[in-house]
């Protein structure tokens, strides 16, 4: 017997949704026939505001685009402005930037561990991983003064040098987190519930991935080796030794396996960066912010975040304000057209697991 179709509104306030957005589901029984993403609950018009602010004031808005991982956006903005201006960055600042980016990735992985398991009702993981994330936030607080929003990586370098003894603290935290990741494996990857709920669910195959312009761990979960840090290296990633994990299958399980390996690779990168870090200055002085003009031109830079590739287009008309700042986060491609396709035929109970796994971050979509 064919079930009667009804419409179900998931979000904008719902514990399983990854932010302020809504998915309108047309369901028959508990199977989704059609899904429509509705955004607009979080539009803050940052890009419009940036056109009215000078180059340095705009920079303070960059980190606020997406909360779980704020540094890739700052770094993108800094690098884009440097590319337009041709401003040099000291070598030590580049190493510090990579360290901050990888710490931010780790913090974001910790949130993902919690979110992915929480979406399946496995709440212990969230308590463990979000607790451990605080150790990384403590490091950020010591380094930058802020736990979530850092405003640390600015055009020309980073704002200040590492505090005394900071490297040792980072290494100690890395040792601790490495041990904890093994505990996470026991709780997550050896868990029959997690396996059963994720294997064969939310499948993105290779063809779909390329057609939709999928990026990051979702692409690597389809067996395609692609990482901006290797393909289009920035800062000092070309001097570092790390691997790009891939997995076959394209389901939530495969993406989880990829992220599990990536968290370990991030620890490996942080250790290398600290071992290789040269001395010297950490920033090149920028002009008086009130009088700072950037020559006419544009730049497009890409940074690898946990959710995938973040692209930032910055155009200057030669004035003291950006002409246009246009961010494209991973969620911009994952959260709308891809999510709508993947949800077709899925079970209602799997929606939030799929959203988490695709790295949907609504603030990135509407900005």
């Amino acid at each position, binding site marked *: 017997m064919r079930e009667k179709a009804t419409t179900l509104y998931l979000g904008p306030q719902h514990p399983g949704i990854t932010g302020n957005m809504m998915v309108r589901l047309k369901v028959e029984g508990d199977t989704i026939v059609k899904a429509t993403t509705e*955004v607009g609950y979080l539009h803050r018009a940052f890009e419009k505001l940036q056109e009215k602010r000078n180059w340095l004031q705009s920079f303070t808005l960059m980190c606020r685009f997406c909360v779980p991982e704020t540094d890739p956006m700052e770094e993108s903005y800094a690098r884009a402005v440097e590319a337009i201006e041709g401003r040099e960055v000291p070598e030590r600042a580049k190493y510090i930037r990579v360290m901050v980016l990888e710490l931010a990735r780790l913090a974001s992985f910790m949130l993902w561990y919690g979110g992915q398991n929480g979406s399946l009702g496995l709440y212990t993981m969230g308590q463990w991983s979000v607790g451990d994330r605080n150790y990384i936030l403590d490091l950020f607080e010591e380094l930058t003064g802020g736990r979530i929003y850092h405003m640390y990586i600015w055009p020309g370098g980073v704002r200040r040098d590492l505090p005394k003894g900071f490297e040792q603290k980072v290494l100690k935290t890395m040792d601790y987190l490495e041990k904890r990741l093994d505990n996470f494996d026991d709780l997550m990857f050896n868990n029959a519930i997690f396996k059963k709920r994720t294997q064969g669910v939310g499948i993105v195959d290779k063809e779909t991935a390329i057609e939709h312009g999928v990026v990051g761990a979702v692409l690597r979960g389809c067996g395609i080796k692609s990482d901006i840090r290797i393909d289009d290296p920035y800062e000092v990633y070309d001097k570092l030794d790390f691997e790009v994990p891939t997995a076959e299958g394209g389901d939530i399980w495969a993406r989880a396996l990829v992220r599990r390996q990536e968290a370990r690779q991030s620890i490996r990168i942080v250790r290398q960066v600290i071992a290789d870090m040269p001395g010297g200055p950490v920033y090149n002085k920028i002009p008086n912010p009130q009088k700072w003009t950037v020559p006419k031109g544009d730049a*497009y830079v890409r940074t690898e975040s946990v959710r995938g590739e973040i*692209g930032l287009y910055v155009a200057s008309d030669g004035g003291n304000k950006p002409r*246009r700042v246009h961010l494209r986060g991973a969620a911009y491609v994952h959260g709308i057209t891809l999510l709508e396709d993947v949800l077709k035929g899925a079970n209602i109970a799997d929606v939030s697991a799929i959203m988490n796994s695709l790295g949907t971050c609504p603030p990135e979509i509407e900005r």
Partner: protein
Amino acid sequence: MEKIKSNLIEAIKGTYPDAREQDHEGNRLDFYVKKQCVPSILNYIKGEGYIHLSHIAFVDWIEEGEFELIYIVWSPKDKIKIFIRARVDRENPLMPNIESIWRQANTYQREAREMYGIQFEGFEAPNEFVLEDWNEIPPMRRDFDTQAYAEETFFHRPGREDAMDVREAIIERSREEIPDFAKKYSR
């Protein structure tokens, strides 16, 4: 890389004599093209291995009366990013639809239509993307005045009128003198 770039320039300029290239340092290559050539050029370079549409950026060049659309395409094989830049008249912004080439262009085109009022030929996506019941001019256009809109649409909370100018309010409340250099920042 230089060889790949020059081959591409030759191939594209062979088919589209109007196209103008600009080679940048590193792995970036720009093409300035006519808007009607955009779909066919994108189709061509997609066949050449530029399979990843990384971004479509929109810029309002109000002084020149034009919008610029920049299609940024990346090749995982050649490791080159190509910028296909097209301009469209501000008064009648009609662009070709490239949704059939890349599915995710749908989202970009919805945003461009809503935020800049750029229309796409035969584009049938739901009208509202981020905004709801919007009756003003598209808000990301340069001539949309955010401050005037905010002042017309919203009102100050009663009892907070004196907070309109923070410095004046401080002077009144604390009878404190504001130094000369700070006065010019006062409204």
